[in-house]
């Protein structure tokens, strides 16, 4: 079979897409981004509408939005991209040997590649009367039109199915003024997403809105009225209810009819592999019709992941793989707050934490297994849904958080503003992202106008939540409220960046196992999909290399952020700041004189004392940096790097009447030993000479408190975005032990944390018990870690000395005159 492809020469290849829904069109959008001219594209859609947001049919039914509001790609879009669009034509035949498809009206289109995105069909109960006028499903715009028409003429609506879709339909019909009864075969509503207590609360509040429920009822027949239209519903137990409109929402079935007729292997969906190919490699399938590893997904986010992968292969990049998704659910009924994810029922080997306030209408259940969150249900208060979901997805060890877990992220030491306001109650002018000054209105506008669905999209377009990330939960909520709730599914593992599908851990492991020493080696070995990475992965790779193979791996200045390349901090006007090292925050008159002289000689506009007990010279011109360093004649302060920053100290027993230990000398010793230490992120230490703690050790990566009988070591504190009190690790007797235990902890962090994780993030992920096991319980391992750190530091040199005295990388600081 000829699978070769004309690239840019000769006639274009032909791509035909059957199905014009969200997943399919997203694939085309991704494909056009990668390879705009590779294909002649033809699209067949059975509906008479261009691609619209099916998730938002519920708000349209409820009268909260119009059909125009939910169109994602108007017909102009197809024209602009030279896509032949056939609307209202249903493809009925695929000829795989002659490679064409044929629609019900005889329209034919030939293909080189075929994309089946036929979606799903609503399942209709095979009961007598199911074909009567007035009996419909809830799947497309035509169904919504039929419901809206019925609501203006009739009174009694019956919705069969008390799942997500059924309740949204019932809510919409109720808002349109109908008297609505929901019939459900199960013992409680939404049993696939809710446990019984949560479902009871939901039922109660829907009943308060006027909805009626008939649970554990099996439909026997739909009864025809005099007009020929449905008039009533009867049940197997003999009861009946009036029904002028019956909406069946009992589930969907992947639409595989066409694929099956063409002889493609189907098993509860069109079976596809990780590259979204069917058993015929020319034919791809994505969306609700496709069965990937036995699962046909029905939520937007996994389908968009699939779209990305399919597009990547259609564009001949050939490097993406879809590996399945974990999903979560939110119900889109105004005024009802509900969230569920993962295994929320629990079973053998799981434990549950429950919070139940039936009067206040709040219910929360979290299911844990092996100290990890595996599922949860929330009703009435879903502010922390996104946070729980991220804990679940990352498989974080939550044993440390257990006591507070139920009360949400705010009670776990985060002073950011995640989840304090509920997105729905915020006004448009309220600020969501403090870092980038983005208000709720900006985000809502971008979501609506640009048709955004994922957190990544919102970050790219608005910058909200793209800096410190503390508003991520809030942005996700706004996304849920604005774009519909099915947004939040994400791939099971988080890749390093868009250049690769590999995780940080996998990349590190490969570097270690295969002794990779340069960035190009890693990229080749791990099959990077970009030629030389991006500004996100290159600094991470550079750190992983030099920390894994100190002295052997190449430190690549071009893969370091400017601050670490220039060894000074870039300021908003393009000038730099210089902070010389003062061991333990102690200085001398001679150093102060040199600093003063340098500030005058180079006309440095601002001199400031920092929070870490250092002196900052701000506004230095880049070309002056080597001369400034030479004149200062002090070591690099590394205030610009993901590196050991400062060891802050109090004066301690030498001067202080309360001091029990010589904290200043301890701080100087620590700083001299750990000097030049690169790390996944910045590292700050402090030493206090007594428990009065004047050096503020509780918010440092490593904090030491002197007590009468020795030293207490605290780790993983943080004073920044995520304020976190350091946790007690161990008490030791001697200064040497302080060095060894602190060093071993820092080396563990250097070896295992993801790039840009502070110690607080790392310890939160692995758990303090793990750290104790590695450092306290295993003395050999502790010494080995400390030895590895000392070795890594022994090959590092002071970058200021190299540049100021030895002319290293001169070109970095010189401009060329022209």
């Amino acid at each position: 079979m000829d699978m070769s492809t004309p690239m840019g020469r000769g006639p274009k290849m032909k791509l035909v897409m059957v199905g014009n829904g969200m997943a399919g069109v997203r694939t085309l959008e991704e494909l056009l981004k990668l390879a705009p001219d590779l294909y002649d594209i033809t699209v067949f859609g059975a509906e008479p509408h261009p691609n619209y947001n099916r998730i938002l049919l519920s708000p349209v039914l409820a009268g909260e939005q119009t059909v125009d509001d939910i169109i994602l790609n108007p017909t102009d879009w197809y024209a602009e991209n030279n896509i032949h669009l056939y609307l209202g034509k249903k493809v009925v035949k695929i000829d795989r040997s002659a490679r064409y498809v044929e629609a019900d009206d005889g329209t034919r289109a030939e293909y080189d590649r075929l994309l089946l995105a036929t979606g799903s069909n609503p399942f209709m109960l095979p009961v007598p009367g199911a074909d009567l006028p007035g009996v419909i499903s809830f799947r497309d715009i035509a169904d919504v039109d039929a419901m809206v028409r019925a609501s203006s003429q009739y009174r009694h609506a019956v919705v069969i199915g008390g799942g997500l879709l059924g309740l949204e339909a019932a809510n919409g019909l109720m808002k349109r003024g109908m008297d609505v009864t929901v019939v459900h075969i199960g013992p409680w509503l939404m049993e696939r997403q809710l446990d019984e207590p949560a479902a009871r609360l939901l039922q109660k509040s829907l009943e308060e809105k006027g909805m009626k429920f008939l649970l554990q009822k099996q439909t026997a027949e739909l009864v025809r009225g005099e007009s020929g239209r449905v008039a009533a519903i009867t049940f197997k137990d003999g009861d009946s209810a009036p029904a002028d409109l019956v909406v069946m929402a009992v589930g969907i079935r992947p639409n595989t009819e066409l694929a099956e007729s063409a002889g493609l292997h189907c098993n509860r969906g069109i079976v596809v592999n990780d590259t979204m190919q069917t058993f015929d490699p020319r034919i791809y399938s994505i969306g609700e019709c496709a069965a990937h590893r036995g699962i046909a997904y029905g939520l937007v986010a996994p389908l968009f992941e699939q779209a990305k992968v399919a597009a990547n292969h259609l564009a001949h990049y050939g490097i993406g793989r879809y590996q399945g998704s974990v999903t979560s659910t939110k119900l889109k009924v105004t005024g009802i707050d509900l969230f569920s994810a993962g295994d929320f029922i629990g079973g053998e080997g799981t434990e549950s934490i429950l919070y139940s306030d039936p009067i206040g209408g709040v219910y929360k259940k979290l299911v844990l297994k092996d100290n990890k969150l595996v599922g949860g249900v929330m009703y009435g208060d879903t502010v922390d849904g996104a946070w729980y979901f991220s804990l679940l997805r990352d498989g974080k060890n939550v044993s440390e958080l257990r006591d507070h877990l139920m009360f949400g992220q705010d009670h776990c030491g985060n002073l950011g503003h995640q989840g304090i306001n509920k997105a729905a109650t915020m006004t448009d002018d309220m600020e969501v992202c403090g870092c980038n000054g983005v208000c709720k209105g900006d985000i809502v506008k971008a979501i609506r106008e640009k048709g955004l669905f994922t957190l990544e999209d919102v970050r790219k377009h608005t910058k909200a939540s793209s800096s410190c990330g503390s508003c991520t939960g809030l942005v996700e909520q706004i996304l849920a409220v604005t774009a519909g709730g099915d947004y939040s599914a994400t791939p099971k593992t988080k890749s390093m960046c868009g250049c690769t599908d590999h995780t940080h851990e996998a990349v590190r492991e490969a570097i270690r196992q295969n002794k990779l020493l340069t960035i190009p080696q890693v990229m080749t070995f791990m099959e990077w999909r970009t030629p030389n990475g991006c500004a996100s992965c290159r600094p991470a790779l550079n750190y992983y290399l030099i920390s894994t193979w100190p002295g052997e791996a190449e430190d690549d200045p071009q893969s370091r952020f400017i601050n670490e390349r220039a060894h000074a901090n870039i300021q908003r006007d393009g000038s730099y700041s210089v902070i010389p090292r003062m061991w333990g925050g102690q200085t001398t008159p001679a150093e102060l004189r040199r600093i003063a002289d340098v500030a005058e000689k180079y006309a440095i506009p601002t001199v400031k004392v920092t929070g870490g007990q250092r002196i900052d010279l701000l506004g230095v011109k880049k070309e002056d940096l080597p001369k400034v360093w030479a004149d200062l004649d002090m070591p690099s302060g590394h205030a610009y790097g993901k590196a050991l920053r400062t060891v802050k100290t109090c004066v301690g027993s030498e001067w202080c009447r309360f001091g029990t230990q010589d904290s200043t000398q301890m701080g100087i010793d620590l700083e001299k030993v750990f000097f030049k230490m690169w790390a996944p992120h910045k590292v700050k230490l402090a030493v206090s000479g007594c428990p009065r703690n004047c050096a503020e050790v509780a918010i440092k990566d490593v904090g030491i408190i002197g007590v009468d009988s020795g030293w207490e070591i605290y780790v993983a504190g943080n004073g920044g975005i995520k304020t976190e009190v350091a946790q007690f690790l161990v008490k030791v007797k001697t200064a040497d032990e302080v060095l060894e235990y602190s060093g071993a902890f820092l080396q563990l962090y250097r070896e295992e944390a993801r790039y840009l994780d502070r110690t607080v993030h790392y310890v939160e992920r692995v758990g303090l018990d793990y750290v104790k096991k590695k450092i306290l319980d295993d003395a050999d391992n502790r010494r080995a870690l400390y030895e590895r750190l000392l070795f890594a530091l022994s090959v590092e040199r002071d970058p200021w000395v190299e540049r100021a005295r030895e002319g290293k990388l001169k070109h970095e600081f010189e401009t060329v005159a022209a």
Partner: protein
Amino acid sequence: MNNWTDILDVNDIPKLGARVVRHGSLDIAVFRTADDEIFALEDRCPHKGGPLSQGIVHGRKVACPMHNWNIELDSGCAVAPDQGCAREFPIKVEGSRVWLDLSAVERVAA
């Protein structure tokens, strides 16, 4: 009229890096990709004026050091959805020498 001027050697610019060429008060960032392609842009990000020469070069793009906008080296324009363009200047490479058309620079500086 063109005013082609020999400004530096390709090897004066680090691979995946940039040098700043100063003409009067105007800074021009001259970039070199992994494949030794050379590009010249005004050293000002269209976003908030960050010095593009200080960014990380990847593929045919540079990431601004200030807020991580990605700028296409061949057009000077930001990668969507960001919007805006840095001014580009005509440049040519002969042998290992890089030539800049100063007349274009002067039109801007004037």
